[in-house]
């Protein structure tokens, strides 16, 4: 399953909730204000670090670029994808669960 999260992990608990219930080997895609969580040095970095052991984690590149976030500062292991990649992930997985 592909899980998407769209809220900042420093403001809302959505990401934590998603990671608590997403099954092993799920794909997680961070979009909109959730993309900040993919950056190194944030207080919530450890959440993503430990999640990388169980999930493949992606971040939506246009949302990074929009917000002035540099791909070179992504947490190692997080993959940046465009909207075409978002569509591919939706096709590859049998369902998409948007956490709101």
């Amino acid at each position: 399953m592909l899980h998407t999260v769209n809220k900042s992990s420093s403001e809302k608990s959505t990401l934590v909730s998603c990671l608590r219930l997403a099954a092993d080997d799920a794909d997680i895609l961070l979009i909109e204000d959730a993309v900040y969580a993919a950056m190194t040095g944030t207080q919530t970095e450890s959440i993503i670090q430990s999640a990388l052991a169980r999930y493949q984690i992606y971040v939506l590149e246009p949302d990074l670029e929009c917000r002035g976030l540099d791909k070179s500062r992504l947490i190692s292991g997080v993959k940046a994808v465009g909207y075409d990649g978002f569509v591919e992930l939706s096709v590859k997985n049998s369902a998409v669960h948007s956490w709101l």
Partner: protein
Amino acid sequence: MDSLKKRIMYVNRRAPYGTVYALEALDVVLAGAVFEQEVSVVFLDDGVYQLRRGQNPAVLNMKDFSKTFGALPDFDVMYLYVDEESLVQRGMTARDLIEVPREDDTDAVTLISSTDLSSLMDQQDVVLQF
């Protein structure tokens, strides 16, 4: 199980009244029932507050939709899964929740462990949050 049926899960994660999502999500469950799919309704995180006993929104001139959950078994929704961990985190137990009697008088409100909920979620064809 009819293999043509889709497994649709509604995931309620928001408290009632502060926003309208809980109320309008319930409208979707009711409207969707006509398609006779394999439906489950889940209450997770602050969503468990939707099932809390003794709600009285009339005090704020708002609509009490908590009573509508009682109609779900008539719409072939036989399980209202409540994430047990979410309940515990909020200092609540099953006794704090409304009852939703099925035709045979058993309660459709069912506690579920996070592990079981995680598996159930993973088997769905469609998962909807609002």
